[in-house]
């Protein structure tokens, strides 16, 4: 075999790309940019235009941020700021609203496990899978915030700030919430399987609409809740919609790693990426799931311009408007699409299978991703040139799983 002549030889596996949608963008001053539509952030038109743009770029999926409280610059609770975007819509409903207007792109809303019902969320995501004909997923999240718990009034959490995250009390609370989230995902997954495929038989001769032998009680019993089942919604088209989670610490790594299809991580360099990936693989193996496919996506905040100086200058300008430099759990990248392509491929060689890009300004950086980054990756043979599957699992190379309750 002759040596490849291209400076960028095709990689063994193309990378996967997702975009994280969050209001006008991830930078707190995003709404002030000329391309932002700050008066339309609560409209269907804004969301359908945005997701259609992502689909134009052949992206695997979009995630949609959500929370059970108002946005705030403070970790501990509401702030007094009036210069930042406030207010948001339910992410599952946004995903459902855009589903009939798109055909290929995966729709992955954020779901907060801490205060919601696994039974409701299971059927909501199953239904999102029906209305999108197989493109649904969810991103599971927990909330330890005292003020969000007060919106529900069912439990109380101690007040704490970012600086307290490593104290034993907060670590215990976090561990408990992630343990509950793991239970939550387990209950949701069992409910998705609680109807076997083909349970609806419409047998006119016997008058039976379903074969009830193919419906199953899930009998989930956990520390925080129990769920009897079966679901009221038949098994969704994908069988199991895609479950994803973002985690920064090893406790969430352990607990959620066992039940997710995609993990979002926030390495700032390839060395750190390798360390985290090894840790996740080890936990996966310890859980006896080493053979199952697992995607590990790197999260990056991106500002893209044709000239590297322009992107950096834009970040400075946005920081000036916000009144402070932007900081993030994820690496913040400001540069050209070509530079970003270099970085993504470097991270891919470290073991990441894909990326969830957080556009600093959706109106600017999302089109830069779909119209400049994607063609650049395609030129390098690292990204699809057409949608190759009709379901999100299909795009991610995940087989439709067997039903845990089906007789072998």
């Amino acid at each position, binding site marked *: 075999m002759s040596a490849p002549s291209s400076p960028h030889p095709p990689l063994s596996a193309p990378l996967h790309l997702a975009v994280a949608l969050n209001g006008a963008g991830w930078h707190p001053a995003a709404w002030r940019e000329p391309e932002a539509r700050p008066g339309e952030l609560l409209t*269907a038109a804004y969301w359908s235009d945005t997701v259609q743009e992502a689909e134009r770029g052949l992206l695997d999926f979009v995630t949609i941020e959500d929370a059970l409280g108002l946005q705030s610059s403070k970790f501990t609770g509401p702030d007094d700021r009036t210069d930042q975007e406030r207010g948001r819509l339910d992410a599952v409903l946004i995903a459902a609203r855009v589903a009939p207007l798109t055909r290929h792109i995966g729709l992955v809303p954020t779901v907060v496990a801490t205060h919601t019902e696994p039974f409701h969320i299971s059927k909501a995501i199953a239904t999102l899978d029906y209305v999108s004909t197989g493109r649904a997923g969810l991103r599971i999240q927990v909330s330890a915030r005292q003020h969000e718990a007060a919106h529900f009034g069912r439990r109380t959490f101690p007040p704490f700030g970012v600086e307290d995250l490593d104290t034993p009390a907060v670590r215990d609370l976090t561990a408990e919430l992630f343990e509950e989230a793991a239970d939550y995902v387990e209950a949701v997954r069992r409910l998705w399987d609680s109807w076997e495929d083909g349970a609806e038989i419409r047998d006119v001769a016997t008058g039976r609409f379903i074969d009830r032998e193919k419906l199953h009680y899930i009998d989930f019993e956990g520390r925080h809740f129990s769920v009897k089942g079966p679901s009221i919604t038949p098994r969704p088209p994908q069988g199991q919609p895609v479950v994803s989670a973002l985690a920064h610490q090893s406790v969430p790594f352990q607990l959620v790693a066992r039940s997710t299809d995609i993990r979002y991580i926030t390495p700032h360099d390839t060395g750190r990426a390798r360390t985290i990936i090894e840790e996740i693989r080890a936990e996966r193996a310890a859980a006896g799931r080493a053979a199952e496919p697992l995607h590990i996506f790197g999260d990056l905040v991106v500002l893209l311009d044709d000239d590297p100086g322009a992107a950096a200058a834009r970040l400075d300008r946005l920081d000036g408007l916000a009144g402070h430099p932007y900081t993030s759990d994820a690496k913040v990248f400001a540069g050209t699409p070509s530079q970003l392509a270099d970085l993504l491929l470097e991270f891919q060689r470290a073991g990441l299978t894909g990326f969830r890009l957080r556009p600093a300004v959706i109106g600017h950086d999302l089109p830069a991703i779909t119209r400049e980054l994607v063609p650049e990756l395609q030129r390098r043979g690292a990204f699809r040139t057409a949608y190759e599957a009709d379901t999100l699992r299909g795009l991610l190379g995940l087989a439709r799983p067997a039903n845990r309750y089906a007789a072998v």
Partner: protein
Amino acid sequence: MSISNGAGTSTGKPLKQIHLAAHFPGVNNTTVWSDPAAGSHVEFSSFAHFARTAERAKFDFLFLAEGLRLREQGGQIYDLDVVGRPDTFTVLSALAAVTEHLGLTGTINSTFNEPYEVARQFASLDHLSGGRAAWNVVTSWDAFTGENFRRGGFLPQEERYSRAKEFLATANELFDSWHGDEIVADQGAGTFLRDARAGSFSHKGQHFDIEGQFNVPRSPQGRPVIFQAGDSDEGREFAAEGADAIFSRYSTLKEGQAFYTDVKGRLARHGRTRDQLLILPAATFVLGDSDAEAQELAREVRRQQVSGATAIKHLEFVWNRDLSSYDPEGPLPDIDPDLGEHTIARGRAQVRMYRDPLAIAREWRELAAAKNWSIRDLVIETGNRQAFVGSPATVASTINDFVQADAADGFILVPHITPGGLDVFADTVVPLLQERGVFRTEYEGTTLRDHLGLAHPDDGAAEPVAS
């Protein structure tokens, strides 16, 4: 009372405009799933077809019911009717993408939810549909359904309306926590929000003790349109106090008028006017080219709805016993109903309809013997007949008569075929109502409140009308 079918009523009152809605048929034996034309109850294409038909016919809204636990009988999942349905909020939000005007009404339980979450879901749906959301507030308390939820089934039956009332009041406080003028989004000045405390709320009550900031700004309708279902005294009072519409049971003209008079009569005590609460019974229909053909078709549909197996199961509701050994084509059981705790059927409201099983069993045995009816004949003959049966002209007249005679303000129609069962109504009956000038030919507004003639909550209450 005589009713004219012409341009006015005999009393000289102006003609009332009829409201029409479409109930996507769900898990009950109204649905004839065995018909070759019957489609999916879960696939989105069925919902989209149904919604588009309703919108083509200029209906006010589409209606979805709720069931949070699969029904059981004799300890097993009930398998003779349609089983399975999608999540209400998710389907309604997707339907907002394939319709422009149609209202989107979801039945959502106040027992197995929390106000903050439900309020943000309805406010989100109202934003995403441009002001077309409605909430049919229902209550339940049973431990059977509660087994699917965190809170379980601890709610005592007598507390269900008190919880529902407080749930709705709390949700209204959340909807009202934003006034609609807070978002300035002035890019130049750098002011997004007029007031950092927008959305602040605090509710301290028997069932809910919550405070903080609501995170969905004011939606186009201010609040979703509120429906109440159920005809108990408590339910009527709940509706008179705070609902915009009642989803009621279909009945005779006379019973309908009595219900209408009673409920509308309660409004004044709550400082409300008669036009602030619409009465919309659910109604089935069968159409034919002639009245005789429709009657024949209706009989056939009832036979399809009640198979032999369904007839036995229906009898079990009354007998509270396993009757599977009986022949549906044979005579009624000669043993008496079991009067102990009702254990045979779970997860359906129907079992509470038979208050005196012994008397019903006696009455049915006598009726069957006199008419030489089998079990199946009896269940078919004593079961609910379709509300409207006839030619399109007959059905249009009957519907109009009910509304002009104040037995209803309109109807929520329940076809027996999914999803195409509404098409014939849209194509044949609606044009006749339009010709009479009692049903819109175009949508005049954009929101569901516009279609229903309900004021926006911010417009203030209408002037009380002297009776």
